[in-house]
Protein backbone atom coordinates (compact mmCIF):
# COMPACT_ATOMS: atom_id res chain seq x y z
CA UNK A 1 0.00 0.00 0.00
CA UNK A 2 1.22 3.40 -0.91
CA UNK A 3 0.49 5.54 2.13
CA UNK A 4 2.98 8.32 1.50
CA UNK A 5 1.78 10.34 -1.46
CA UNK A 6 4.98 12.32 -1.83
CA UNK A 7 6.58 11.59 -5.15
CA UNK A 8 10.23 10.66 -5.49
CA UNK A 9 12.32 13.31 -7.17
CA UNK A 10 14.90 11.86 -9.49
CA UNK A 11 17.50 14.30 -10.65
CA UNK A 12 20.77 14.20 -12.49
CA UNK A 13 23.82 15.88 -11.05
CA UNK A 14 27.27 16.38 -12.40
CA UNK A 15 30.46 15.94 -10.39
CA UNK A 16 34.02 16.53 -11.21
CA UNK A 17 36.08 13.33 -11.17
CA UNK A 18 39.80 12.70 -11.51
CA UNK A 19 40.68 10.51 -14.45
CA UNK A 20 43.71 8.24 -14.36
CA UNK A 21 45.00 6.90 -17.69
CA UNK A 22 47.56 4.19 -16.92
CA UNK A 23 50.05 3.06 -19.54
CA UNK A 24 52.01 -0.18 -19.99
CA UNK A 25 53.90 -1.68 -18.34
CA UNK A 26 51.64 -1.27 -15.36
CA UNK A 27 54.23 -1.90 -12.67
CA UNK A 28 56.32 1.00 -13.90
CA UNK A 29 53.28 3.23 -14.08
CA UNK A 30 52.44 2.30 -10.48
CA UNK A 31 55.95 3.26 -9.42
CA UNK A 32 55.43 6.69 -11.00
CA UNK A 33 52.05 6.99 -9.26
CA UNK A 34 53.69 6.18 -5.92
CA UNK A 35 56.23 8.87 -6.66
CA UNK A 36 53.45 11.39 -7.27
CA UNK A 37 51.58 10.34 -4.14
CA UNK A 38 54.75 10.70 -2.09
CA UNK A 39 55.18 14.29 -3.27
CA UNK A 40 51.55 15.23 -2.87
CA UNK A 41 50.24 13.32 0.09
CA UNK A 42 46.55 12.60 0.22
CA UNK A 43 45.92 13.72 -3.33
CA UNK A 44 43.56 10.83 -4.07
CA UNK A 45 41.96 10.80 -0.64
CA UNK A 46 38.17 11.36 -0.91
CA UNK A 47 38.41 12.13 -4.60
CA UNK A 48 36.23 10.24 -7.04
CA UNK A 49 38.57 8.56 -9.50
CA UNK A 50 37.71 7.23 -12.94
CA UNK A 51 40.06 4.80 -14.64
CA UNK A 52 40.45 5.40 -18.39
CA UNK A 53 41.53 2.17 -20.11
CA UNK A 54 40.68 3.23 -23.67
CA UNK A 55 44.17 2.74 -25.12
CA UNK A 56 45.20 -0.03 -22.77
CA UNK A 57 45.47 -3.63 -23.98
CA UNK A 58 44.92 -5.62 -20.82
CA UNK A 59 42.63 -8.50 -19.90
CA UNK A 60 40.12 -8.79 -17.13
CA UNK A 61 42.55 -10.41 -14.69
CA UNK A 62 45.14 -7.67 -15.15
CA UNK A 63 42.48 -4.99 -14.73
CA UNK A 64 41.32 -6.61 -11.48
CA UNK A 65 44.89 -6.70 -10.21
CA UNK A 66 45.37 -3.04 -11.15
CA UNK A 67 42.25 -2.03 -9.24
CA UNK A 68 43.51 -4.03 -6.23
CA UNK A 69 46.92 -2.36 -6.46
CA UNK A 70 45.25 1.06 -6.56
CA UNK A 71 43.06 0.03 -3.62
CA UNK A 72 46.20 -0.71 -1.58
CA UNK A 73 47.24 2.89 -2.27
CA UNK A 74 43.85 4.16 -1.05
CA UNK A 75 42.79 5.10 -4.60
CA UNK A 76 39.20 4.02 -4.95
CA UNK A 77 37.90 3.65 -8.49
CA UNK A 78 34.27 4.76 -8.96
CA UNK A 79 34.06 3.91 -12.62
CA UNK A 80 35.92 2.66 -15.66
CA UNK A 81 35.91 4.50 -18.95
CA UNK A 82 36.60 3.02 -22.36
CA UNK A 83 36.48 -0.64 -21.29
CA UNK A 84 35.19 -3.40 -23.54
CA UNK A 85 32.13 -5.06 -21.97
CA UNK A 86 34.13 -8.29 -21.61
CA UNK A 87 36.56 -6.53 -19.28
CA UNK A 88 33.92 -5.69 -16.72
CA UNK A 89 31.91 -7.99 -14.51
CA UNK A 90 30.17 -8.21 -11.16
CA UNK A 91 32.11 -6.65 -8.33
CA UNK A 92 33.90 -4.28 -10.70
CA UNK A 93 33.37 -0.52 -10.88
CA UNK A 94 30.64 0.65 -13.23
CA UNK A 95 31.32 1.43 -16.89
CA UNK A 96 31.26 5.15 -17.62
CA UNK A 97 30.82 6.98 -20.86
CA UNK A 98 29.92 10.40 -22.19
CA UNK A 99 32.58 12.15 -20.15
CA UNK A 100 33.48 15.69 -21.14
CA UNK A 101 37.00 17.01 -20.83
CA UNK A 102 37.61 19.69 -18.23
CA UNK A 103 40.74 21.59 -17.32
CA UNK A 104 43.71 19.62 -16.03
CA UNK A 105 44.05 19.17 -12.31
CA UNK A 106 46.72 21.11 -10.51
CA UNK A 107 48.86 18.68 -8.62
CA UNK A 108 50.98 20.35 -6.03
CA UNK A 109 54.75 20.03 -6.36
CA UNK A 110 56.27 19.72 -9.78
CA UNK A 111 54.72 16.51 -10.93
CA UNK A 112 55.13 15.79 -14.61
CA UNK A 113 54.03 12.21 -14.75
CA UNK A 114 51.64 10.51 -14.64
CA UNK A 115 49.34 12.99 -16.33
CA UNK A 116 46.23 13.49 -14.28
CA UNK A 117 43.36 14.99 -16.16
CA UNK A 118 39.82 15.63 -15.09
CA UNK A 119 36.59 14.75 -16.75
CA UNK A 120 33.06 15.66 -15.99
CA UNK A 121 31.03 12.50 -15.84
CA UNK A 122 27.60 14.08 -16.32
CA UNK A 123 26.26 16.98 -18.37
CA UNK A 124 27.58 20.25 -17.03
CA UNK A 125 25.76 22.45 -14.58
CA UNK A 126 26.56 26.09 -14.00
CA UNK A 127 27.57 25.19 -10.43
CA UNK A 128 30.96 24.09 -11.73
CA UNK A 129 32.29 27.58 -12.18
CA UNK A 130 35.87 26.72 -13.06
CA UNK A 131 34.85 24.76 -16.14
CA UNK A 132 34.46 27.12 -19.08
CA UNK A 133 32.59 25.54 -21.93
CA UNK A 134 29.99 26.74 -24.40
CA UNK A 135 26.61 25.46 -23.24
CA UNK A 136 25.23 23.14 -25.89
CA UNK A 137 21.82 23.98 -27.29
CA UNK A 138 19.56 22.89 -30.09
CA UNK A 139 17.15 24.79 -32.28
CA UNK A 140 14.09 23.09 -33.75
CA UNK A 141 12.40 24.89 -36.62
CA UNK A 142 9.21 22.82 -36.69
CA UNK A 143 6.19 22.60 -34.45
CA UNK A 144 6.34 19.81 -31.86
CA UNK A 145 3.25 17.72 -32.53
CA UNK A 146 1.00 15.91 -30.10
CA UNK A 147 2.65 12.66 -28.99
CA UNK A 148 6.14 13.82 -29.86
CA UNK A 149 8.73 14.35 -27.21
CA UNK A 150 11.86 16.39 -27.59
CA UNK A 151 14.48 15.46 -25.00
CA UNK A 152 17.80 17.30 -24.74
CA UNK A 153 19.45 16.82 -21.34
CA UNK A 154 22.66 18.55 -22.48
CA UNK A 155 21.37 22.08 -22.53
CA UNK A 156 18.90 24.63 -23.88
CA UNK A 157 16.10 23.91 -26.34
CA UNK A 158 14.71 26.56 -28.67
CA UNK A 159 11.61 25.79 -30.71
CA UNK A 160 10.61 28.09 -33.55
CA UNK A 161 6.98 27.04 -33.71
CA UNK A 162 4.41 25.76 -31.29
CA UNK A 163 4.39 22.86 -28.86
CA UNK A 164 1.06 21.10 -29.25
CA UNK A 165 -1.22 19.78 -26.59
CA UNK A 166 0.05 16.29 -25.76
CA UNK A 167 3.63 17.05 -26.81
CA UNK A 168 6.57 17.59 -24.47
CA UNK A 169 9.91 19.38 -24.45
CA UNK A 170 12.46 18.26 -21.87
CA UNK A 171 15.69 20.23 -21.57
CA UNK A 172 18.65 20.08 -19.24
CA UNK A 173 18.82 23.84 -19.54
CA UNK A 174 16.20 26.43 -20.40
CA UNK A 175 13.26 26.03 -22.77
CA UNK A 176 12.49 28.77 -25.32
CA UNK A 177 9.28 28.49 -27.36
CA UNK A 178 8.76 31.02 -30.13
CA UNK A 179 5.12 30.09 -30.53
CA UNK A 180 2.31 28.79 -28.39
CA UNK A 181 3.22 26.39 -25.60
CA UNK A 182 0.20 24.08 -25.30
CA UNK A 183 1.92 20.89 -24.20
CA UNK A 184 4.46 20.24 -21.45
CA UNK A 185 7.75 21.97 -20.89
CA UNK A 186 10.31 20.63 -18.42
CA UNK A 187 13.41 22.75 -17.93
CA UNK A 188 16.49 21.94 -15.86
CA UNK A 189 15.59 18.27 -16.03
CA UNK A 190 19.01 17.03 -14.89
CA UNK A 191 19.06 19.25 -11.86
CA UNK A 192 19.41 22.88 -12.81
CA UNK A 193 17.52 25.29 -10.62
CA UNK A 194 18.56 28.29 -12.70
CA UNK A 195 16.87 27.01 -15.86
CA UNK A 196 13.92 29.01 -17.17
CA UNK A 197 10.98 28.55 -19.48
CA UNK A 198 10.08 31.24 -22.01
CA UNK A 199 7.15 31.19 -24.41
CA UNK A 200 5.24 33.52 -26.70
CA UNK A 201 1.84 32.23 -25.72
CA UNK A 202 1.28 30.29 -22.53
CA UNK A 203 -1.36 27.59 -22.75
CA UNK A 204 0.73 24.83 -21.21
CA UNK A 205 -0.60 21.62 -19.69
CA UNK A 206 2.38 21.21 -17.39
CA UNK A 207 5.46 23.25 -16.53
CA UNK A 208 8.42 21.98 -14.54
CA UNK A 209 11.79 23.41 -13.51
CA UNK A 210 14.31 21.22 -11.69
CA UNK A 211 11.64 18.72 -10.71
CA UNK A 212 9.19 21.28 -9.29
CA UNK A 213 6.05 21.34 -11.38
CA UNK A 214 2.89 23.33 -11.97
CA UNK A 215 -0.17 22.17 -13.88
CA UNK A 216 -2.41 24.38 -15.99
CA UNK A 217 -4.86 24.69 -13.10
CA UNK A 218 -2.18 26.10 -10.79
CA UNK A 219 -1.39 28.94 -13.17
CA UNK A 220 -2.79 32.41 -12.67
CA UNK A 221 -5.59 32.86 -15.22
CA UNK A 222 -4.30 36.25 -16.37
CA UNK A 223 -1.13 34.60 -17.71
CA UNK A 224 -3.07 32.44 -20.12
CA UNK A 225 -2.36 33.22 -23.77
CA UNK A 226 0.34 35.71 -22.81
CA UNK A 227 4.09 35.79 -23.45
CA UNK A 228 5.50 34.53 -20.17
CA UNK A 229 8.75 33.55 -18.52
CA UNK A 230 8.96 31.14 -15.60
CA UNK A 231 11.78 30.56 -13.14
CA UNK A 232 12.42 28.90 -9.83
CA UNK A 233 12.66 30.70 -6.51
CA UNK A 234 13.36 28.19 -3.76
CA UNK A 235 10.68 25.54 -4.14
CA UNK A 236 8.22 27.70 -6.05
CA UNK A 237 7.81 28.39 -9.72
CA UNK A 238 7.48 32.09 -10.40
CA UNK A 239 5.95 33.56 -13.55
CA UNK A 240 5.77 36.96 -15.10
CA UNK A 241 4.55 38.40 -18.37
CA UNK A 242 7.10 39.38 -20.94
CA UNK A 243 6.58 42.63 -22.71
Amino acid at each position, binding site marked *: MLTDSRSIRIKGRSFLAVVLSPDLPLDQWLVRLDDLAARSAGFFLDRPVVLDVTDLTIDRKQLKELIEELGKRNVRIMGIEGARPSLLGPGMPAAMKGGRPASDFEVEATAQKPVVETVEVMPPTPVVAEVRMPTPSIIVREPI*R*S*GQSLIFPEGDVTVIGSVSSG*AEVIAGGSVHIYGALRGRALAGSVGNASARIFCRKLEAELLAIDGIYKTADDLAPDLRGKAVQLWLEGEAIMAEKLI
Partner: protein
Amino acid sequence: MAKVVVVTSGKGGVGKTTSTAAIGAALAQRNERTVVVDFDVGLRNLDLVMGAERRVVYDLVNVIQGDAKLPQALIRDKRLETLFLLPASQTRDKDSLTPEGVERVINDLKKHFDWIICDSPAGIERGATLAMRHADMAIVVANPEVSSVRDSDRIIGLLDSKTLKAELGERMEKHLLLTRYDSMRADRGDMLKVDDVLEILSIPLLGIIPESTDVLRASNIGAPVTLADNRSAPAMAYFDAVRRLTGEPVPIAIPGDRRSLFGKIFGRRAA
Protein backbone atom coordinates in the same frame (compact mmCIF):
# COMPACT_ATOMS: atom_id res chain seq x y z
CA MET B 1 2.54 10.11 -62.76
CA ALA B 2 0.19 8.48 -60.27
CA LYS B 3 -0.42 10.31 -57.02
CA VAL B 4 -1.01 8.37 -53.81
CA VAL B 5 -3.14 10.29 -51.31
CA VAL B 6 -3.97 9.11 -47.80
CA VAL B 7 -7.11 10.38 -46.10
CA THR B 8 -6.43 10.20 -42.39
CA SER B 9 -7.43 11.77 -39.07
CA GLY B 10 -6.50 9.76 -36.00
CA LYS B 11 -9.96 10.15 -34.54
CA GLY B 12 -12.90 8.11 -35.75
CA GLY B 13 -16.18 9.45 -37.06
CA VAL B 14 -14.84 12.73 -38.42
CA GLY B 15 -15.61 11.94 -42.06
CA LYS B 16 -12.63 10.11 -43.56
CA THR B 17 -14.70 7.59 -45.50
CA THR B 18 -17.26 10.17 -46.65
CA SER B 19 -14.44 12.45 -47.79
CA THR B 20 -12.56 9.64 -49.55
CA ALA B 21 -15.66 8.73 -51.55
CA ALA B 22 -16.57 12.34 -52.32
CA ILE B 23 -13.04 13.29 -53.40
CA GLY B 24 -12.63 10.09 -55.41
CA ALA B 25 -15.90 10.68 -57.27
CA ALA B 26 -15.06 14.36 -57.84
CA LEU B 27 -11.67 13.45 -59.32
CA ALA B 28 -13.26 10.79 -61.54
CA GLN B 29 -15.75 13.37 -62.85
CA ARG B 30 -12.75 15.34 -64.07
CA ASN B 31 -11.84 12.28 -66.15
CA GLU B 32 -8.98 11.28 -63.89
CA ARG B 33 -8.58 7.54 -63.48
CA THR B 34 -9.17 7.15 -59.75
CA VAL B 35 -9.21 4.26 -57.31
CA VAL B 36 -10.38 4.50 -53.71
CA VAL B 37 -8.74 1.91 -51.44
CA ASP B 38 -10.31 0.89 -48.12
CA PHE B 39 -7.62 0.19 -45.51
CA ASP B 40 -10.12 -0.28 -42.70
CA VAL B 41 -9.76 -4.07 -42.64
CA GLY B 42 -12.33 -5.58 -40.29
CA LEU B 43 -14.55 -2.48 -40.19
CA ARG B 44 -15.00 -1.71 -43.84
CA ASN B 45 -17.43 1.04 -44.81
CA LEU B 46 -16.20 2.54 -48.04
CA ASP B 47 -18.08 -0.08 -50.09
CA LEU B 48 -21.35 1.06 -48.45
CA VAL B 49 -20.74 4.75 -49.10
CA MET B 50 -19.80 3.91 -52.70
CA GLY B 51 -22.90 1.74 -53.08
CA ALA B 52 -20.84 -1.32 -54.05
CA GLU B 53 -21.40 -3.55 -51.01
CA ARG B 54 -23.27 -6.18 -53.00
CA ARG B 55 -20.57 -6.49 -55.62
CA VAL B 56 -17.60 -7.31 -53.36
CA VAL B 57 -16.05 -10.67 -54.26
CA TYR B 58 -12.34 -10.27 -53.53
CA ASP B 59 -10.72 -7.67 -51.33
CA LEU B 60 -7.41 -6.01 -50.44
CA VAL B 61 -6.37 -8.86 -48.11
CA ASN B 62 -7.02 -11.45 -50.85
CA VAL B 63 -4.77 -9.51 -53.20
CA ILE B 64 -2.05 -9.08 -50.57
CA GLN B 65 -2.10 -12.79 -49.74
CA GLY B 66 -2.08 -13.77 -53.40
CA ASP B 67 -5.54 -15.39 -53.42
CA ALA B 68 -6.78 -12.99 -56.09
CA LYS B 69 -5.34 -10.82 -58.84
CA LEU B 70 -5.71 -7.04 -58.55
CA PRO B 71 -8.16 -6.73 -61.53
CA GLN B 72 -10.41 -9.35 -59.89
CA ALA B 73 -10.69 -7.32 -56.71
CA LEU B 74 -11.18 -3.89 -58.31
CA ILE B 75 -14.84 -2.84 -58.58
CA ARG B 76 -15.74 -0.35 -61.30
CA ASP B 77 -18.32 2.24 -60.32
CA LYS B 78 -21.66 1.89 -62.13
CA ARG B 79 -22.04 5.63 -62.61
CA LEU B 80 -18.49 6.68 -63.44
CA GLU B 81 -16.23 4.78 -65.82
CA THR B 82 -13.03 6.16 -64.34
CA LEU B 83 -13.84 5.40 -60.69
CA PHE B 84 -12.80 2.15 -59.02
CA LEU B 85 -12.98 0.70 -55.52
CA LEU B 86 -10.59 -1.71 -53.85
CA PRO B 87 -12.59 -2.90 -50.85
CA ALA B 88 -11.29 -4.07 -47.47
CA SER B 89 -12.02 -7.43 -45.91
CA GLN B 90 -14.68 -7.48 -43.23
CA THR B 91 -13.76 -10.92 -41.84
CA ARG B 92 -10.07 -10.33 -41.19
CA ASP B 93 -8.28 -7.82 -39.00
CA LYS B 94 -5.51 -5.30 -39.58
CA ASP B 95 -2.78 -7.89 -38.89
CA SER B 96 -3.54 -9.39 -42.30
CA LEU B 97 -1.93 -6.33 -43.87
CA THR B 98 1.81 -6.77 -44.44
CA PRO B 99 4.17 -3.92 -45.35
CA GLU B 100 5.51 -5.83 -48.39
CA GLY B 101 1.99 -6.73 -49.55
CA VAL B 102 0.74 -3.16 -49.27
CA GLU B 103 3.77 -1.88 -51.15
CA ARG B 104 3.19 -4.37 -53.98
CA VAL B 105 -0.49 -3.46 -54.31
CA ILE B 106 0.21 0.29 -54.30
CA ASN B 107 2.94 -0.12 -56.93
CA ASP B 108 0.56 -2.18 -59.09
CA LEU B 109 -2.18 0.43 -58.75
CA LYS B 110 0.25 3.19 -59.73
CA LYS B 111 0.58 1.59 -63.18
CA HIS B 112 -3.14 1.85 -63.88
CA PHE B 113 -4.39 4.98 -62.13
CA ASP B 114 -3.82 8.74 -61.93
CA TRP B 115 -5.04 8.99 -58.34
CA ILE B 116 -4.92 6.40 -55.56
CA ILE B 117 -6.96 7.57 -52.57
CA CYS B 118 -6.33 5.50 -49.43
CA ASP B 119 -9.04 5.59 -46.77
CA SER B 120 -7.20 5.15 -43.48
CA PRO B 121 -8.77 3.49 -40.43
CA ALA B 122 -9.00 5.53 -37.22
CA GLY B 123 -6.23 5.18 -34.66
CA ILE B 124 -2.48 5.25 -34.98
CA GLU B 125 -1.84 1.52 -35.18
CA ARG B 126 -0.83 -0.83 -37.98
CA GLY B 127 -3.77 -0.16 -40.32
CA ALA B 128 -3.35 3.61 -40.15
CA THR B 129 0.45 3.55 -40.46
CA LEU B 130 0.32 1.18 -43.43
CA ALA B 131 -2.32 3.32 -45.16
CA MET B 132 -0.07 6.39 -44.93
CA ARG B 133 3.24 4.58 -45.53
CA HIS B 134 3.42 4.96 -49.34
CA ALA B 135 1.51 8.22 -49.69
CA ASP B 136 2.80 11.19 -51.69
CA MET B 137 0.42 13.56 -49.94
CA ALA B 138 -1.99 13.45 -47.05
CA ILE B 139 -5.43 14.88 -46.48
CA VAL B 140 -5.87 15.32 -42.75
CA VAL B 141 -9.58 15.34 -41.91
CA ALA B 142 -10.58 17.18 -38.74
CA ASN B 143 -13.74 18.47 -37.12
CA PRO B 144 -13.63 21.88 -35.45
CA GLU B 145 -13.41 20.48 -31.91
CA VAL B 146 -10.48 19.97 -29.54
CA SER B 147 -10.18 16.18 -29.43
CA SER B 148 -10.30 15.85 -33.20
CA VAL B 149 -7.72 18.61 -33.64
CA ARG B 150 -5.35 17.09 -31.12
CA ASP B 151 -5.60 13.65 -32.77
CA SER B 152 -4.96 15.23 -36.16
CA ASP B 153 -1.90 16.91 -34.72
CA ARG B 154 -0.65 13.50 -33.60
CA ILE B 155 -1.27 12.08 -37.07
CA ILE B 156 0.67 14.94 -38.69
CA GLY B 157 3.59 14.02 -36.44
CA LEU B 158 3.39 10.43 -37.68
CA LEU B 159 3.14 11.58 -41.31
CA ASP B 160 6.40 13.44 -40.77
CA SER B 161 8.18 10.46 -39.22
CA LYS B 162 6.67 7.08 -40.10
CA THR B 163 6.12 7.39 -43.85
CA LEU B 164 8.46 6.30 -46.63
CA LYS B 165 8.75 9.90 -47.82
CA ALA B 166 9.77 11.07 -44.33
CA GLU B 167 12.32 8.26 -44.00
CA LEU B 168 13.87 9.33 -47.31
CA GLY B 169 14.21 12.81 -45.86
CA GLU B 170 11.57 14.29 -48.17
CA ARG B 171 8.66 16.43 -47.09
CA MET B 172 5.17 14.99 -47.03
CA GLU B 173 2.62 17.36 -48.52
CA LYS B 174 -0.21 17.75 -46.03
CA HIS B 175 -3.61 19.39 -46.42
CA LEU B 176 -6.29 20.05 -43.86
CA LEU B 177 -9.89 19.25 -44.69
CA LEU B 178 -12.19 20.70 -42.05
CA THR B 179 -15.43 18.72 -42.07
CA ARG B 180 -18.79 18.92 -40.30
CA TYR B 181 -18.38 22.68 -40.01
CA ASP B 182 -21.56 24.12 -38.53
CA SER B 183 -21.77 27.87 -39.06
CA MET B 184 -24.60 28.27 -36.53
CA ARG B 185 -22.59 26.60 -33.78
CA ALA B 186 -19.47 28.49 -34.81
CA ASP B 187 -21.40 31.76 -34.40
CA ARG B 188 -22.44 30.74 -30.91
CA GLY B 189 -18.82 29.90 -30.08
CA ASP B 190 -19.61 26.20 -29.51
CA MET B 191 -16.96 25.16 -31.98
CA LEU B 192 -13.33 25.95 -32.59
CA LYS B 193 -12.86 28.76 -35.09
CA VAL B 194 -11.21 28.02 -38.42
CA ASP B 195 -8.29 30.29 -37.54
CA ASP B 196 -7.78 28.51 -34.22
CA VAL B 197 -7.62 25.11 -35.92
CA LEU B 198 -5.20 26.41 -38.56
CA GLU B 199 -3.02 27.98 -35.89
CA ILE B 200 -2.79 24.73 -33.94
CA LEU B 201 -2.21 22.43 -36.90
CA SER B 202 -0.25 24.87 -39.09
CA ILE B 203 -0.81 23.07 -42.39
CA PRO B 204 -2.53 24.53 -45.49
CA LEU B 205 -6.31 24.38 -45.67
CA LEU B 206 -7.76 22.31 -48.50
CA GLY B 207 -11.39 23.06 -47.82
CA ILE B 208 -14.20 23.49 -45.33
CA ILE B 209 -17.11 21.07 -45.69
CA PRO B 210 -20.31 22.30 -44.06
CA GLU B 211 -22.30 20.02 -41.77
CA SER B 212 -25.30 18.95 -43.84
CA THR B 213 -28.05 16.37 -43.99
CA ASP B 214 -27.12 15.96 -47.68
CA VAL B 215 -24.05 13.97 -46.55
CA LEU B 216 -26.15 11.54 -44.52
CA ARG B 217 -28.75 11.25 -47.29
CA ALA B 218 -26.05 10.48 -49.85
CA SER B 219 -24.45 7.74 -47.79
CA ASN B 220 -27.87 6.21 -47.11
CA ILE B 221 -28.49 5.82 -50.83
CA GLY B 222 -24.93 4.54 -51.32
CA ALA B 223 -23.53 7.39 -53.36
CA PRO B 224 -20.64 9.77 -52.76
CA VAL B 225 -22.09 13.20 -51.98
CA THR B 226 -20.38 14.61 -55.07
CA LEU B 227 -22.44 12.17 -57.18
CA ALA B 228 -25.73 12.13 -55.26
CA ASP B 229 -26.43 15.84 -55.50
CA ASN B 230 -23.69 17.84 -57.11
CA ARG B 231 -25.41 21.17 -56.43
CA SER B 232 -25.59 20.63 -52.65
CA ALA B 233 -23.37 22.74 -50.37
CA PRO B 234 -21.10 19.88 -49.22
CA ALA B 235 -20.69 18.62 -52.80
CA MET B 236 -19.68 22.10 -53.99
CA ALA B 237 -17.19 22.34 -51.13
CA TYR B 238 -15.69 18.97 -52.09
CA PHE B 239 -15.44 20.03 -55.77
CA ASP B 240 -13.57 23.16 -54.69
CA ALA B 241 -11.28 21.10 -52.46
CA VAL B 242 -10.46 18.78 -55.37
CA ARG B 243 -9.66 21.75 -57.61
CA ARG B 244 -7.22 22.95 -54.95
CA LEU B 245 -5.80 19.43 -54.67
CA THR B 246 -4.97 19.46 -58.38
CA GLY B 247 -3.19 22.78 -57.97
CA GLU B 248 -5.86 25.27 -59.03
CA PRO B 249 -5.93 28.37 -56.84
CA VAL B 250 -9.48 28.61 -55.51
CA PRO B 251 -10.25 31.09 -52.72
CA ILE B 252 -11.70 29.58 -49.54
CA ALA B 253 -14.90 30.95 -48.08
CA ILE B 254 -15.91 30.09 -44.55
CA PRO B 255 -19.44 28.66 -44.77
CA GLY B 256 -22.12 30.91 -43.32
CA ASP B 257 -19.93 33.98 -43.19
CA ARG B 258 -22.40 36.01 -45.23
CA ARG B 259 -25.33 34.72 -43.27
CA SER B 260 -23.61 35.47 -40.01
CA LEU B 261 -23.25 39.08 -41.12
CA PHE B 262 -26.99 39.30 -41.73
CA GLY B 263 -27.53 37.34 -38.55
CA LYS B 264 -25.66 39.98 -36.59
CA ILE B 265 -27.71 42.84 -38.05
CA PHE B 266 -31.06 41.12 -37.55
CA GLY B 267 -29.96 39.59 -34.29
CA ARG B 268 -29.30 43.02 -32.83
CA ARG B 269 -32.63 44.34 -34.00
CA ALA B 270 -34.46 41.43 -32.49
CA ALA B 271 -32.67 41.98 -29.21
